[in-house]
């Protein structure tokens, strides 16, 4: 039986890997996800078959309760709320690992409990609990249940250091006297506090990095549980998720030109509003204001348009009407493309999903590096609800917080059109000199109202 179990776990692990491989292309991604589903089903079934079902009620209660909640959430969730959902699910992965590890502490599967099991048990309790409370804070910030601005306590870093030290000390105590039930509980308690103090000083705008990192932790928590149980499928699946989260974390940091250290400990950011926080300052340069009608007239005469969507677009729920505009333009033979900055939206890849939901075909969506050379041959760069990712100060102004961040080269287009609610600067608080450029048209207003106006003009001139 042990061979059946081991080989089936190996099969499941292989299926997870194939599933992840198919996720490398939009054409096969859905199949990849299905492979992972099969892998999970295989792992669950063989576990039940091999261990024999001793407590059917217990298992059914847990499976049905979790399955129902998960299914309802998956059906109901709005695509704009995906970051919150992923944050919360990261936390669930964490708490599941903590619970399994603690249950294993109470009723060890193999006796005597060896040193390495105890060490990995501590790791599992610690990572799982940090993932849980850290994710709950990230969820609360994204959901607006608590302010997005960084919360920095006095001596914050020293406090974090002491908490880490506390976990290590408690871990040593636990290994010396595993029978004392207080030690694992204290480890959980200190880890819970650490998860909170770890995430509260991180600003709302940096949450994409944090949820990617916690995604990684949720995988590592599963792996740690696999170490405790000497179960390879847990170790492998957890390691895959851990690696995935880490890569996304890295990519997000690169896209903001920040180090992970700076994101985690820099306490950067003011508040988590929609990117119009803080006013651009006292510069008295003149801005040319235009209306949606003016913009529509221009759109009537162009050959090529690149649309740069930002999170402001999603806040205004303007994706659908934007797609309608793009379809009208495309039908007239105008070349329409979307340029997606890596940090557009609230999590890695978020903007792509929001546009896909609005029926924008994914072959119209271009990554920054693939489209940046095209702006110079483009008539109109239409920027909707974005600011920092197109701010040329990032190239030249050395003292700017944006300096060095890769941006979309919208200023190379013949006409630059901003649809924005106000003159406000972005998260970084850096004024955008492009607003004052001669070739820039500023159209102020709600993104949905403006684009609807644009569509109306275009239709009138049909």
């Amino acid at each position, binding site marked *: 039986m042990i061979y059946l179990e081991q080989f089936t776990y190996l099969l499941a692990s292989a299926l997870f*890997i194939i599933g*992840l*491989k198919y996720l*490398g292309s939009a054409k096969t991604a859905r199949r990849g*996800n*299905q492979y*992972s*589903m099969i892998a*999970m089903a295989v*792992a669950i079934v063989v576990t039940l078959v091999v*261990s024999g*079902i*001793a*407590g059917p009620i*217990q*298992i059914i209660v*847990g*499976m049905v309760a*979790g399955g129902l909640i*998960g299914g309802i959430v*998956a*059906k109901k*969730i709005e695509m704009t709320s995906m970051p919150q*959902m992923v944050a919360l*699910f990261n936390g*669930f*992965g964490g708490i*599941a690992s903590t*619970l*399994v590890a603690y249950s294993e502490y109470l*009723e060890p599967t193999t006796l005597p409990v060896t*040193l*390495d099991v105890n060490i990995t048990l501590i790791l599992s309790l610690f990572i799982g609990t940090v993932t849980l409370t850290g994710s709950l804070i990230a969820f609360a910030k994204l959901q607006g249940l608590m302010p997005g601005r960084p919360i920095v306590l006095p001596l914050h870093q020293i406090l974090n250091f002491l908490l880490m030290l506390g976990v290590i000390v408690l871990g040593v105590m636990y290994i010396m006297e595993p029978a004392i039930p207080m030690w694992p509980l204290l480890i959980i308690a200190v880890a819970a506090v650490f998860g909170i103090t770890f995430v509260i000083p991180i600003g709302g705008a940096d949450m994409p990095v944090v949820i990617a990192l916690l995604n990684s932790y*949720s*995988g590592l*928590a*599963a792996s740690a*549980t696999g170490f*405790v149980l*000497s*179960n390879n*499928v847990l170790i492998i699946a*957890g*390691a*895959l998720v*851990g*690696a995935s*989260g*880490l*890569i996304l974390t890295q990519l997000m940091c690169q896209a903001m030109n920040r180090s992970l250290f700076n994101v985690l400990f820099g306490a950067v950011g003011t508040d988590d509003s929609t990117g119009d926080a803080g006013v651009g300052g006292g510069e008295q340069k003149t801005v040319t204001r235009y209306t949606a009608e003016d913009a529509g007239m221009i759109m009537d005469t162009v050959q090529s348009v690149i649309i740069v969507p930002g999170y402001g677009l999603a806040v205004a729920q303007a994706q659908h009407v934007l797609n309608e505009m793009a379809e*009208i333009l495309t*039908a007239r033979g105008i070349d329409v493309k979307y340029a*997606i900055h890596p940090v557009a939206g609230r999590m*890695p*890849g978020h903007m*792509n*999903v929001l546009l896909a939901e609005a029926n924008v*075909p994914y072959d119209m*969506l271009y990554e920054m590096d693939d489209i940046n050379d095209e702006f110079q041959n483009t008539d109109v760069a239409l920027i909707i609800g974005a600011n920092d990712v197109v701010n040329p100060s990032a190239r030249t102004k050395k003292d700017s917080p944006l300096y060095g961040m890769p941006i979309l080269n919208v200023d190379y287009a013949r006409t630059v059109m901003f649809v924005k609610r106000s003159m406000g600067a972005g998260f970084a608080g850096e004024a955008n000199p492009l607003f004052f450029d001669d070739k820039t048209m500023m159209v102020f207003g709600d993104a949905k109202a403006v684009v609807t106006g644009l569509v109306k003009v275009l239709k009138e001139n*049909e």
Partner: protein
Amino acid sequence: MESLIVSIYVFTLAVFVGFELVTKVPPLLHTPLMSGSNAISGITVVGALLAANANNWKVSTILGVLAIAFAMINVIGGFMVTDRMLGMFKKDKKVEKGA
């Protein structure tokens, strides 16, 4: 200790495989990648099943039942929402006529 060494081997190699595969996932699919990996991290359900699989309601069993529930939220919720999202990605340019 020997099993720990084997576990470390398996873990390290799996991390490398993960790096190789995920580097090839285009940014277009990064959100489904995250929700899908949420579901995969629900693999803890295997450990939870072992913990809950007893015909009693001792603390260790109850913790296992809770762990099953949390892990299954991830598994079902994660896979379903990923599938829903991936279903939205369409390639064909749909040109509206007579709009």
